[in-house]
């Protein structure tokens, strides 16, 4: 479980994110929605311990992040960025990368990589080099690379933002199935409310660096917490 308690994140000494309280439960996918520059990705980076927090605490399994050994914690999570950021190697090697970092045996790596390649329907790409993939294919590889680690916490930063609508639809379906099957704790950043509703149980709306509302898609749509949320929803529907 993740508990965010009264955190402040600064960039160039300017507050960019303040979260009083936010919980992510085991097995739950929480979507974070909000306009561009609202602080969504900043929250994800703070959760991954890739950005320092100036105040407050993030607790992972009841223990503050600063008390976790940095590497030990980062090896319990996995991060998928908007851009696939694959390395110049084959698809198989890319997917195996995190397992290699963890010193997992070749046999186990082969078995785990093979399973995820099959699940994401990229068997025909496994020997191809990353540079030869389309955007959708590369993002599938990036998802396989994150899921193969079987992380306790999966962080997804707008992984479909750069894809065309049909590719995006298919990938969302596949990701939804993977998340349901694995029952993994996940945080999914998007600025598409429908995407958020499809993939997550709860949604947190972040605007101007503050969490304005947490609830189901239905609750947020029917009862926006304040004017900023209402205005954001209106903007989305236009």
């Amino acid at each position, binding site marked *: 479980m993740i508990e965010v308690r009264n955190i402040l994140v600064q960039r160039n000494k300017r507050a960019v994110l303040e979260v009083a309280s936010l919980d992510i439960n085991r097995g739950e996918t929480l979507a974070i929605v909000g306009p561009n520059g609202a602080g969504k990705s900043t929250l994800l980076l703070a959760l991954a311990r890739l950005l320092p927090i100036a105040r407050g605490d993030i607790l992972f399994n009841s223990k503050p992040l600063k008390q976790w050994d940095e590497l030990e914690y980062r090896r319990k999570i996995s991060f998928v960025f908007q851009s696939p*950021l694959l390395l110049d190697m084959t698809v198989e090697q890319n997917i195996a990368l995190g397992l290699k*970092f963890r010193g997992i045996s070749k046999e186990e790596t082969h078995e785990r990589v093979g399973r995820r390649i099959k699940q994401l329907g990229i068997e025909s790409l496994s020997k191809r080099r990353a540079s030869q993939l389309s955007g959708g294919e590369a993002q599938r590889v990036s998802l396989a690379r994150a899921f193969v680690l079987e992380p306790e916490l999966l962080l997804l930063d707008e992984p479909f933002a750069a894809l065309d609508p049909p590719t995006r639809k298919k990938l969302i379906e596949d990701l939804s199935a993977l998340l349901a099957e694995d029952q993994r704790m996940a945080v999914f950043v998007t600025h598409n409310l429908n995407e958020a509703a499809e993939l997550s149980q709860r949604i947190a709306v972040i605007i101007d660096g503050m969490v304005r509302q947490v609830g189901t898609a239905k609750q947020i749509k029917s009862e926006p917490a304040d004017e900023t949320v209402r205005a954001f929803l209106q903007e989305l529907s236009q």
Partner: protein
Amino acid sequence: MLFDSEIIQITFLSLQVSTVATLISLLIGLPFGTWLALGNFRFRSFLLSIINTGMALPPVVVGLVVAIMLWRSGPLGDLHLIYTPIAIIIAQTVIAAPVVTGLTAAALEALDPRLQQQLLGLGASRPQMIWYLWREARLPLLAALMAGFGSVISEVGASMMVGGNIRGQTRVLTTAIVLETSKGEFGTALALSTLLLVLTYLINLALTWIQQRGQKR
């Protein structure tokens, strides 16, 4: 006039001295350039500007400074290194290290900055992250190595000043060319120049082949 055996000895010494200097420059430049590219500290831009200036260091100035340091009455005079191949290696390292450092920093800065976060986000330790960043930048890093080698195999000023161009001991291809030209032995000078060009070409051909192979993979 030079004998064949002497030419072989001069050629071998040139290659030996410049290869060792380039490798030492790589040992210094790769970690230092990486630190400059990935670090987030005060004076980073200042240090980078110093390194970039260092990439254009005139060899004669380097020769002069190293000669002062190694001169018998100089601060390192007791080491008795002046007019030895080691003195040439020191001077050439001073010339090549900023080149390798500056180009290493440039190669790593050209990578997507989020790649560091992605590698860390997949559970890489810091050394693992750096290793994979080097791997991603391997083609420009090889270019840095080629530029470093090119800057020292072709320089003459520093080798002349700290090596002394002593026959059978510190005479390298470039200093031999200068000497033969000053004696009016243009034929020998031209032959040595051709040899130097062919050698430089062959080494760069090998490195380019490795580089292109990496690109096609």
